[in-house]
C-alpha cells in the first residue's frame, strides 16, 4: 500500500506521498492512516466548486485538488450589484473593516474566499493568472513568477519532466526563450502547447461545471437568513424580476432553479419544470411551494443562507398573452398548470398518458408514459362498428396462471379456476392466434398464444390465453391476461 496524501504534520515529519505505508510506519509507528477514497474526494471538490459559484458562474475543477474560477467581467457586475442593491458584495470584509474599496477586486475576492474556506476547515493557496493553466500552476507551486516555476508545472505525461531535468532545463524560464520547434522534436509535440498556455501566450477557455443560464436573479444578505420561513416570499420576488426579463426577451421558462448558498459553503438546489413555457410569477412560486413541501429531506439552513440565486435554466419563445377584443366566452381553464403542480408534488412519472405502439403482442401494443414525453405519434386502432370490445379494460402484467378445463386441440375453456374460484364458461369466442415474433428473435421460436374471450355464468368477462399449441408443447399453460368491463 502506498500513501496517497498526507497532512501537514506528517509532511513536517519528512514523509512524502508515494511512500510505502510500511516504510512510513517503520519511521513513525503511530501514524494514523485511512483508505483513500477518490470518489469522496471528487465529491468534496465538487461541493467546494458549487460554493464558488457565488463569485462567478465559470467554475471548473482541475486535477485532484484544484479549482479554477474565471473572473473575466465579474468585477463590473459585482461593483454594480454591490453599490445598487445589496450593499457591499463581500460582507465579511466590510464587517471586519480591514480594507475598504481601495483594495482591488481580486484581492477582496481572495480574502473572502480564504476566509470562507478557513471557516470550513480548508487551507487554500490562491494565485491569479492570465490563463487557467498559469493560475493553477502558480497556486500549486506557490510561486509568483511563471518563469520561476519548475518544469513539473507543465504536467507532461509520463516522465517528461525527468527528461527535461536531464537536459539541464529545470525551470519554465529556461524553456521560455528557446525555439519551440526543437523542443517539440525532442520532448514531444505536447510541450510547446502546454508551455504557451502556462506563459499566457494561448488562452484556452475553461469548461464550467454548469452552463450559465441566460437569466439570473440574485439576492445577497449581509445577515444570513436563518430560517426557511421567508424563503417562499423571496423566491416569488425573484420570480417577478425574472418574469420581467423573460417578458423583455419574449421567452418563457420551461425549467427554473433556485440555488441556496449557505454561509459554510454548502449549496442546496431546487429545480422545477413546467409542461409549457411560462413566465407567470405566481405559477412559478406555487411550483416552488410544492417542491419545498415534497422534499424528502427538508432544507437545513444551518448557519443561514447568505445568497439566493434564481435562474431560468431552459427558455423557449413565448408570445405575449393577448386578451380577445370581444368579450369572448368563458374559457375552460387550462389543465397544464395543474398537471405541472401534480408532477412536482408526486413526481413526473405520476402524470401519465396512454401511448399506442406498433407491436402485435397485447402487452406491448400500448403503454403509459409521463405526460411530458409528448403526444403519441400513432393513431389508436379504430374499433369495428357493431362488435363488442375485443380488448380488455385492464391488463395483467405479468399474466396470471389459471387451471383450465378445455377441449383438445384448440377448444375454448369450459371451466377455469382463478384466485381460488371456479368459473363456468357460458359464452366464448376464439381462438385469436398471436404468433411469437420469430422474425425479430433469431434463435428459436417461442410458444404461440391462443386468446379466448369468455364470459362466465354470472356475466363476468375475461381474456384468457393458452401459452402454446398442443403440438408445440405437451401440456401448455393457461393464463388470464385481462378483465373486460
Amino acid at each position, binding site marked *: 500500500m502506498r500513501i496517497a496524501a498526507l497532512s501537514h504534520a506528517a509532511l513536517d515529519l519528512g514523509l512524502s506521498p508515494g511512500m510505502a505505508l510500511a516504510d512510513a510506519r517503520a519511521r513513525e509507528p503511530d501514524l494514523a492512516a485511512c483508505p483513500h477514497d477518490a470518489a469522496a474526494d471528487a465529491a468534496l471538490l465538487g461541493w467546494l466548486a458549487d460554493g464558488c459559484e457565488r463569485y462567478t458562474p465559470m467554475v471548473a475543477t482541475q486535477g485532484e485538488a484544484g479549482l479554477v474560477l474565471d473572473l473575466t467581467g465579474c468585477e463590473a457586475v459585482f461593483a454594480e450589484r454591490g453599490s445598487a442593491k445589496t450593499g457591499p458584495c463581500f460582507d465579511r470584509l466590510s464587517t471586519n473593516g480591514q480594507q475598504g474599496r481601495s483594495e482591488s477586486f481580486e484581492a477582496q475576492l481572495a480574502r473572502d474566499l480564504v476566509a470562507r474556506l478557513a471557516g470550513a476547515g480548508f487551507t487554500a493557496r490562491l494565485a491569479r493568472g492570465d490563463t487557467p493553466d498559469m493560475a493553477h500552476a502558480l497556486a500549486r507551486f506557490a510561486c509568483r513568477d511563471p518563469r520561476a516555476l519548475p518544469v513539473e508545472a507543465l504536467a507532461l505525461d509520463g516522465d517528461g519532466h525527468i527528461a527535461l531535468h536531464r537536459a539541464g532545463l529545470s525551470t519554465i524560464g529556461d524553456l521560455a526563450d528557446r525555439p519551440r520547434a526543437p523542443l517539440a522534436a525532442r520532448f514531444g509535440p505536447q510541450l510547446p502547447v502546454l508551455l504557451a498556455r502556462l506563459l499566457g501566450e494561448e488562452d484556452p477557455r475553461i469548461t464550467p461545471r454548469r452552463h450559465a443560464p441566460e437569466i439570473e436573479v440574485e439576492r445577497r444578505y449581509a445577515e444570513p437568513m436563518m430560517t426557511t420561513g421567508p424563503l417562499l416570499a423571496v423566491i416569488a420576488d425573484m420570480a417577478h424580476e425574472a418574469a420581467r426579463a423573460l417578458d423583455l426577451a419574449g421567452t418563457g421558462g420551461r425549467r427554473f432553479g433556485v440555488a441556496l448558498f449557505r454561509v459554510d459553503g454548502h449549496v442546496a438546489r431546487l429545480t422545477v419544470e413546467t409542461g409549457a413555457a411560462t413566465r407567470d410569477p405566481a405559477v412559478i412560486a406555487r411550483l416552488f411551494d410544492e417542491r419545498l413541501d415534497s422534499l424528502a429531506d427538508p432544507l437545513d439552513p444551518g448557519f443561514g443562507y447568505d445568497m439566493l440565486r434564481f435562474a431560468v435554466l431552459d427558455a423557449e419563445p413565448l408570445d405575449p398573452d393577448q386578451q380577445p377584443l370581444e368579450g369572448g366566452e368563458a374559457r*375552460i*381553464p*387550462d*389543465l397544464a*398548470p395543474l*398537471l405541472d*403542480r*401534480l408532477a412536482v*408534488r*408526486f413526481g413526473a412519472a*405520476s*402524470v*401519465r*398518458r*396512454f401511448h399506442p405502439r406498433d407491436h402485435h403482442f397485447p402487452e406491448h*401494443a*400500448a403503454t*403509459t408514459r409521463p*405526460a411530458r414525453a409528448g*403526444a*403519441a405519434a400513432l393513431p*389508436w*386502432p*379504430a*374499433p369495428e*362498428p*357493431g362488435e*363488442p*370490445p*375485443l*380488448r*380488455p*379494460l*385492464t*391488463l*395483467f*402484467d405479468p399474466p396470471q396462471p389459471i387451471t383450465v378445463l378445455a*377441449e383438445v386441440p*384448440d*377448444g*375454448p375453456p*369450459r371451466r377455469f379456476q382463478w384466485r381460488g*374460484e371456479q368459473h363456468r364458461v*357460458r*359464452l*366464448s*369466442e*376464439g381462438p385469436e392466434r398471436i404468433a411469437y415474433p420469430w422474425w425479430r428473435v433469431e434463435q428459436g421460436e417461442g410458444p404461440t398464444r391462443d386468446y379466448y*374471450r*369468455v*364470459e362466465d*355464468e*354470472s*356475466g*363476468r*368477462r375475461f381474456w384468457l390465453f393458452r401459452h402454446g399449441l398442443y403440438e408445440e408443447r405437451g401440456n401448455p399453460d393457461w393464463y388470464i391476461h*385481462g*378483465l*373486460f*368491463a
Partner: protein
Amino acid sequence: MQSESALLARLRGTIAQAKAVASAHPPVPLGSEAADRALGGGLKRDGLHEFYAAEPQDSPAALAMALLCAVRCRATGHGAPLLWLRERKARSDGQPYGPGLAELGIDPDSVILLDLPDLMAVLRAGADSLHHGGATAALLEMPGKASAFDLTASRRLALAAARMGMMVLVARGCAQPVPSVAHSRWRVASAPSAALAADAPGHPVFDLTLIRHRGGKEGIDLRLEWNRDEQSFRAPLSGGVSAPAIGGADRSGGRRAA
C-alpha cells in the same frame, strides 16, 4: 299589496336563478329511457357519484361504469379531458389498457392517468384537480377499505365539484358503502350479455341498483347495455340470459373448432 308583489318578484328571481344554474349544468342523460326517468333526467353533472362493486369480482364492472358515465358526461358537454386518479398499489385488477379503453369508445388520448402513491395522495390530487377545474370529470379509483374517504372528504369533493361544474366519480371495488354526501350511489355487477353469433360474448351489460339518490327515487334496479357506437347506454335487447345457454356448450364446441 306592496309586500306581496315584492315577495312574488323575489320568488320569481329565485326560480330564475335556479333555472340558470340548472341550464349551466344540465344533467347527463345515460341514454336509456328507464334510467333517465328514474334519475329525473340523468346524473347530476356537477355532483359526486359512487359506484360500488356488488362483489369483489365486480370491480372491473364498477370501474367501467364510472368511466362510461364520464364518457357520457364528456359526450354531452365540452370535450375537456378526463382525469383518472388511482393508487399505484391498486394492481390486483391489472393496469389500465389503452386499446381496451378505445374498444369501449373512450378516446385514450383524452384520459390523463394520475398514478399516485397512496390514498391520501389520491384525495389530495382529487381536491386539487377540482379546485383547478379544466377537466370534464375526475374519476377516483379507491379499492378496498379506504378509511380516509369519509364524510368530510366526500363533502370537500362534492363542494369543489359543484363550484367548478365538474363531475366526480368514485369507483369502489371490494368495499362496503360508507356514509358520504354522494348525489347518487350505485351497486354495480356484471350481467350476462346477449350472445352474438356462435355464442360469442356480447356487448358489456351491467346490473345496477340505485341504492342512494339525493332528492330522488331510490332502490331502483336497472340493467343497462353499453352501446359503443352511439356512446350511450340502452336497455339490453334480449334481456340477458337467453335460450342459447341451454345446451349451448355442446353446440359451441363444434363452432369453435371450425
